[in-house]
């Protein structure tokens, strides 16, 4: 674990609290992301993430306050609006899903950048440093900021724990769930809303550009290690926690480094290792299985019949 390492570096109290908050964000992002990746909704989260900048800038303009809670609340409104827009486009136009997602993502991001750079250039009070929401910057977080992030993350994990049966049923087979009378579309919306929340609280840690990685990479890495959903969510959470912790520590030691790239690269490191060495799904295991299949080894590809 990283905790002894942190103590060994003799980091200040504030950094420790921030590390704990960001670790909680990483863990919750991994857990919520696990469900959304399994549902095939990874890209909607990215559109929501890129849209947050508009909301962050808008919240500052509208309230004149620079508190993290206010900025993130604005980001959440924008993220939900972006996802809602996607739903409307899917419903009322014949635009392809991926094209619609890419459009909403880039347009909302462009708008956010224009807003923020305009505000910074004109010296709007409180706008200095707003561009840190692009790539994440945990060094500026206070202990109470970190507490907010941690509480929201804990609530998100609680939501997953409560609705796991419903979410799993819909993620695996929405048609079966709907035929059984479950409101699959509404359950989907709750999941997407949770992803939007995680993307927003992930902003300080990873920034709008990279925060999707926190939602997507840990579950993909975790999938390599397990064939069951609960262990997958747990492993994804652990990968998120460790990446978040390490990212905060590293960027507090190198304050000029934005946190986002560090956190994401760490998570990607886990993924790379998992892709190669994981038992049975890893490249090495599959290479060995191809060379000389053991009689008791389960086949890796499902046959069409038999």
């Amino acid at each position: 674990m990283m905790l002894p390492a942190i103590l060994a570096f003799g980091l200040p109290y504030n950094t420790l609290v921030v590390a704990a908050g960001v670790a909680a964000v990483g863990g919750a992002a991994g857990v919520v992301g696990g469900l959304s990746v399994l549902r095939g909704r990874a890209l909607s989260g990215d559109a929501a993430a890129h849209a947050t900048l508009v909301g962050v800038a808008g919240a500052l303009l509208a309230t004149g306050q620079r508190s993290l809670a206010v900025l993130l609340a604005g980001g959440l409104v924008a993220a939900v609006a972006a996802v809602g827009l996607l739903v409307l486009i899917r419903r009322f136009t014949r635009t392809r899903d991926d094209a619609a997602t890419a459009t909403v993502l880039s347009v909302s991001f462009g708008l956010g950048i224009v807003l923020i750079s305009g505000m910074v250039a004109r010296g709007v009070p409180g706008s200095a440093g707003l561009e840190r929401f692009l790539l994440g910057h945990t060094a500026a977080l206070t202990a109470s900021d970190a507490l907010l992030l941690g509480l929201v993350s804990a609530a998100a994990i609680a939501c997953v724990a409560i609705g796991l049966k419903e979410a799993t049923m819909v993620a695996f087979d929405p048609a079966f769930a709907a035929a059984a009378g479950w409101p699959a579309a509404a359950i989907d919306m709750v999941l997407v809303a949770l992803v939007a929340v995680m993307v927003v609280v992930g902003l300080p840690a990873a920034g709008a550009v990279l925060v999707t990685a926190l939602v997507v990479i840990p579950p993909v890495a975790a999938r390599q290690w397990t064939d069951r959903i609960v262990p997958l969510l747990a492993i994804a959470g652990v990968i998120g926690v460790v990446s978040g912790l390490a990212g905060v520590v590293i960027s507090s030691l190198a304050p000029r480094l934005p946190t986002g790239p560090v956190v994401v690269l760490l998570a990607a490191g886990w993924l790379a290792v998992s892709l190669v060495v994981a038992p049975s799904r890893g490249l090495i295991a599959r290479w060995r299985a191809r060379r000389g299949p053991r009689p008791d080894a389960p086949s890796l590809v499902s046959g069409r019949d038999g």
Partner: protein
Amino acid sequence: MNLRPATESPASSSTGSIPLLEWHDLTVAYGRRPVLWNVDLEIASPCLFGIIGPNGAGKSTLLKASLGLVPVTGGSVRFWGEPLSRVRRRLAYVPQRETVDWDFPVSVMDVVLMGAASQLGWFRRAGRRERELAGDCLDRVGLTDLAGRQIGRLSGGQQQRVFLARALAREADIYFLDEPMAGVDAGSQEQIFAILAGLRDAGKLVVAVHHDLQTAARWFDAAALIDMRLVAAGPTAEVLTPENLEQTYAGRRGILDELGRAVARGVRTP
């Protein structure tokens, strides 16, 4: 066979009881493109009922519309005389196998448990009763030994049987199956057929979309031939006549050989 067009007066029915399932002038359109026109039919008694027709005939759509999975443009569906919303607990659905991601991180037992848990209320988890039920259903489809296996590591026939077990775990009275025999080996087909026949014998109605004319006559008690509209319905032997088949598959050259073989095998002989 208690089967008749829904428009006929109830007095002409052989039983006079409320039909299990009735499609009344059902019309479905995707956007402006109609896929199913005025399907008017009722099934009065438990049986193995095949929905047969060429690709794009609207067979799957008929199932999905019956279960409320696609919006109905016109007409209605009734179960025991009641609307769908009041009878969902008594229905079970087996979607086409290709519609799910078989790499999904769940075991065979997990999937069957979803069937049992789908009858529970919000946020209630499967308990001992659901586990026992799921275990029984796995036993019925002969997959007890594979309960812990990830579902992607099964053959096509085994995957189909997992889907069937999940539906069984709903302990329903009407079962809708979409192409249950597609991509399934002969052994699993026989096994699946035996389970479906068992359901029928236990007084359940089984409605299955099927595309293979060769096996349709042997497996189904009754059938509906569909090509965007209802071509014919009734006891299988009376429905699968050369005239009806030609009408259903008209203009589909590729199917003519199959049609010829089916006729040669004497599907018309009762």
